């Protein structure tokens, strides 16, 4: 069974209907909204699978179905639906993960009185994301894009009584909106330049070849192609949603939402939207590559930002103590990898990694959720520990997810998708710095994930919650297991010598390599992963933390280092004094930048706005209004002064008359009466 393009709207419509149902259901009803949401997701999953099946019949064919939205002046604004393998795969991904997260949530939020509301928002989130995936119009994409933002705002701030949650929700919305403004400008520019809001429109759409040729050959005053400018503007939007440097600041804070929401945001919906957008408009991004004179391509910018983000996220993840924050920075880093892949020209690799990452990151977050739930909302990894024995399923699945995220060779999905990215970066002719950044990131990833696993699951329980933790209920374990299977197995869909997924996504041929061609790289990256694991084990594995208050080895400051020197091996101290301090410094500087410079920049922008507002208010209230009052008062004052001149003396009146007569006579004589 396949789904025709004209029925694609059903995919987002089913969760949307569930959402409306959930939001308007009586406050007291708990099961109805949940059932509605699950039903909607199952239906959407079925429809998505059907759509994917249809798309895979002939991956090179794009099915579109357009409709008129409204008419302004003489122009009709047309929107539409589009089905290709990219959309199909993404739909299945989103609905599947959405369904698993929803199942997990039924258990995770079982005590929350507003659980019905939660499922309403969740359905809205998924619906908006699905709409974004299957649209054939940048405008409709933008609309869904903003609705994704709204839903994430509502979900991050779900526990709105907590000021931190409310603030985090606002921060997420505002930061992503900064990017959205770039998107909006790019959108109107594209519409202005092409006259169409559609991607594919029989040659007239924005992504059709004739249009692209025109866009890339129209040069702006600076020597850039119009397509470069529009592409970069769209990338600003994508950077906001996908947490790219320097707009990544909202992502870690978004942890204030319920943990299933974090899983959804970090895996399938919110942050995936930016990468998906870049993949969708990739022809536009790449359109200027043909012009050798242009000094700076749109994709170059994407690659640079992606590399910086990949590295930064990984570095920052090292210094975090909140289990969810480590994962959050890890997401930032992985999204950087995806952008890096797009920047170096391999959007297929990016989407491949997006898909695998979605599963293992959802797995990790839900695993973290399971831990948090079991330990009565304990998120500080210094106060966890020793859970491996108590939560066997959670530990096992979490470990599999960790392996996938690190990219342990051959078995785990993350290995293959990361290999694809690194392979593409290696072949990029412009610069090798992104490739190098990617390699460093691999080490760091392995390092911080090792630390995380060691701190959370090994050693002894260092807090009340961890000491009495029990395995989570079945409704939570089930999704974990399903996700773990996917985290391991999905990589096999895109092996270098059997690139099934790549071929389908590309909609055409994909170069098939023997395993041997990239073998050198695989060896290197495996070595790097092992290096990271080793380093992690070196710091955290050898001597298990026993006290929650004990200083983190990496954050040790000077006196601590001296004290350690006195009683430890010289080699240990050397490591601590050089690599350890450098790491700590790096992490601290990065944290400082994150906290003060970029957070500060946001803060400063707010302050500036406030100052301007203050000045404006001062001008309003003390300047213009006072001016009005002063003028009135001045007028009245002059009136009063004049009124005083009317003394009431009859004779002075007569004198005025005489003077008046004289003046009138003089005026007349001067003018000369004719």
């Amino acid at each position, binding site marked *: 069974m396949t789904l025709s393009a004209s029925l694609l709207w059903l995919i987002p419509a089913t969760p949307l209907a569930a959402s409306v149902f959930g939001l308007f259901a009586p406050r007291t009803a708990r099961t109805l909204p949940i059932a509605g949401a699950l039903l909607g997701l199952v239906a959407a999953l079925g429809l998505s699978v059907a759509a994917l099946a249809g798309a895979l019949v002939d991956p090179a064919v794009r099915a579109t179905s357009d409709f008129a939205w*409204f008419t*302004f002046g003489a122009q009709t604004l047309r929107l539409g639906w589009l089905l290709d393998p990219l959309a199909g795969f993404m739909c299945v991904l989103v609905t599947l993960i959405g369904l698993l997260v929803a199942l997990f949530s039924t258990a995770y939020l079982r005590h929350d009185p507003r659980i019905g509301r939660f499922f309403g928002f969740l359905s809205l989130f998924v619906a908006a994301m699905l709409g974004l995936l299957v649209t054939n119009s940048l405008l409709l994409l933008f609309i869904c894009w903003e609705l994704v933002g709204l839903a994430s705002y509502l979900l991050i701030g779900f526990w*709105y009584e907590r000021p931190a949650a409310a603030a985090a929700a606002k921060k997420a919305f505002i930061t992503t909106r*900064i990017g959205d403004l770039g998107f909006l400008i790019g959108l109107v520019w594209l519409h*202005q330049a092409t006259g169409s809001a559609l991607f594919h429109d029989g040659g007239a759409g924005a992504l059709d070849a004739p249009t692209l040729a025109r866009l890339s050959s129209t040069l702006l005053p600076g020597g850039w192609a119009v397509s470069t400018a529009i592409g970069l503007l769209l990338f600003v939007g994508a950077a906001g949603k996908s947490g790219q440097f320097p707009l990544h600041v909202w992502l870690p804070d978004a942890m204030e939402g319920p943990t299933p929401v974090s899983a959804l945001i970090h895996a399938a919906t919110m942050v995936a939207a930016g990468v998906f957008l870049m993949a969708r408009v990739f022809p536009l991004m790449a359109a200027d590559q043909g012009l050798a004179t242009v000094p700076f391509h749109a994709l170059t910018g994407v690659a640079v930002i992606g590399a910086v983000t990949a590295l930064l996220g990984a570095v920052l993840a090292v210094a975090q103590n909140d289990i969810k924050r480590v994962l959050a920075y890890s997401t930032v880093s992985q999204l950087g990898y995806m952008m890096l892949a797009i920047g170096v020209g391999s959007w297929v690799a990016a989407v491949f990694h997006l898909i695998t990452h979605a599963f293992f990151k959802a797995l990790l977050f839900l695993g973290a959720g399971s831990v948090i739930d079991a330990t009565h909302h304990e998120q500080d990894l210094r106060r966890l520990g020793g859970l491996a024995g108590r939560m066997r399923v959670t530990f096992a699945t979490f470990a599999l997810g960790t392996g996938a995220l690190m990219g342990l060779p051959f078995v785990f999905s993350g290995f293959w998708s990361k290999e694809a990215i690194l392979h593409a970066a290696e072949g990029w002719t412009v610069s090798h710095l992104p490739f190098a950044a990617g390699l460093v990131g691999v080490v760091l990833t392995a390092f911080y994930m090792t630390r995380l696993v060691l701190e959370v699951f090994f050693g002894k329980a260092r807090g009340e919650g961890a000491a009495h933790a029990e395995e989570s209920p079945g409704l939570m374990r089930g999704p974990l297991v399903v996700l773990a299977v996917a985290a391991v197995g999905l990589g096999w869909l895109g092996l270098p010598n059997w690139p099934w997924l790549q071929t389908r996504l590309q909609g055409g041929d994909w170069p098939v390599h023997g395993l041997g061609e990239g073998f050198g790289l695989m060896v290197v990256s495996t070595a790097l992963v092992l290096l990271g694991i080793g380093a992690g084990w070196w710091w955290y594995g050898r001597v298990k933390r026993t006290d929650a208050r004990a200083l983190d080895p990496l954050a040790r400051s000077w006196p601590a280092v001296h004290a350690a020197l006195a009683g430890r091996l010289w080699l240990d101290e050397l490591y601590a004094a050089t690599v350890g301090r450098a790491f700590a410094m790096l992490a601290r500087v990065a944290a400082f930048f994150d906290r003060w410079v970029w957070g500060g920049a946001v803060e400063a922008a707010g302050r500036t706005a406030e100052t301007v507002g203050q000045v404006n208010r001062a001008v*309003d209230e003390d300047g213009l209004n006072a001016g009005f009052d002063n003028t*009135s008062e001045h007028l009245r004052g002059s009136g009063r002064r004049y009124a005083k001149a009317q003394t009431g003396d009859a004779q002075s009146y007569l004198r005025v008359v005489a003077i008046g007569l004289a003046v009138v006579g003089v005026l007349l004589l001067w003018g000369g009466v004719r």
Partner: protein
Amino acid sequence: MNELPLLSLLVALPWFGALLLWLWPKAPVRGLAFIFCASTLVLGVIAAAGFDPTRTGYQWTERHAWIPSLRIDYHLGLDGMSLLLVLLTGVVSPVALATVLRRLESPRLAALLFLLLQGAALGVFVALDFFPWFICWEFSLVPAFFLIKGWGGAGAGRAAYTFVVTTLAGSAGLLLAFAALYAATGTMNFVDLAQLQAEGRLPGLLTAVGAGVPTLAFVGALVGLAVKAPLFPLHTWMPATYAEAPPGVALFLTAVMSKMGVYGFFRILWVLFPADLRVHADLLLLLALGGAVLGAMAALRQTDVRRMLAYSSLNHVSYCLVALFAAAAGVKGHEVAVEAALSGALVQAFNHGLSASALFVCAAALESRAGGSREFARFGGVRAVAPVLAGMSGVALFSSLGLPGLNGFVGEFLIFRGVFGLAPWAAVVGTVGLLATALFLLTFWQRVFHGPPAGAAAGPFPDLDRGEIAVLLPLCVLMIVLGVAPGLITPWINPLVTGWAATLPMP
């Protein structure tokens, strides 16, 4: 055309209601007032049903000689823009009236004044001769003044004076402009003047009166309209007035009366002075942008709900004007952008009316539960105790900040689409305003609705009652419906906008 004097009825019925209230002391005030107030919506819908959207020009016209010696006519007519604003008035007026009369012990005088105000606003939207138009324009101030002064807050006296005097000072400019036009052409009929302008004779006739007269007339009309709209920096009467007026009146001021200014910009400046508008477009664009950006920035600093909403209104109305001025400077080859900008301005005018109304109703609800206090600091965690209020203000708020799917986005998209094609820098600067809007609206939302219940919300804080829901629900539904299907209203203005874009003298 139809024999039924629909437009006369439209204007006269609220006034008749006021008369009835005055003459009939024992009248059931609320019922009577609402019937006559709602007549606008009924007649507006009838007019819309009989409106042929494919034709340009005016429909439902009525023209009778009024003062033959001065060639002044009683001339009413409806085009798409008028229709849009009449419908807006029809929707908003009952909302405003309900808010005004809420919890009022002796509602008679207030209802009477409000009906007068409503009729005057309608007159402005349908009159096609300057004389009746100006009568309604000015007359609207009288009931507004008394409503603000009589039922407003502590500082209402000063606010009402500032409002009336500033607006009247602006009206002097309008009067001057039309005195000059009349001196030059011997007519004050909008249609006739537009005809003269279309034939290219108007500037010559004006210059014949005196060298500086064309500029004088343009500046006069500009100032008069700019105060009403308001255009930065002539907005300074606004924050205090919106803050001190009774909520229902502030609602009507921002939803309908500010649209009188926007309407005037289109009906008068755009049609009669396109050349002057083009010459000064850059400066005006800068001012409008100033309103959009600084308005939002200023709103960020406010701690008073209604002052914040006032600046928010400045921000939104300024976008209409940004679009208008950008379109005025349009160049050949950008007709689509001009159409987008103009459509956007009109759609935005309508949508802002809806969302601003809803926000003011919510502000009124908050105020009434906090003993009249409007400070953010007096609230906190309202969402927990009054979820319905929170939900509905959420819809209005997100509509106001231009969330797609709600009505506010459509106008903003069209405006940015148009302005970007005509003056890209303005669009880029304008986005700062969008960002600041989101920032202050969410800040307001966070401080008042989120967090643990505090301030007034810590005490007994009832959720919306049935009356308030009945007022807000239609607005919320309209916001969603028009966000999803803006095609419900755009067909009315399309021929108009296309015509404007086609006749614009573009170099």
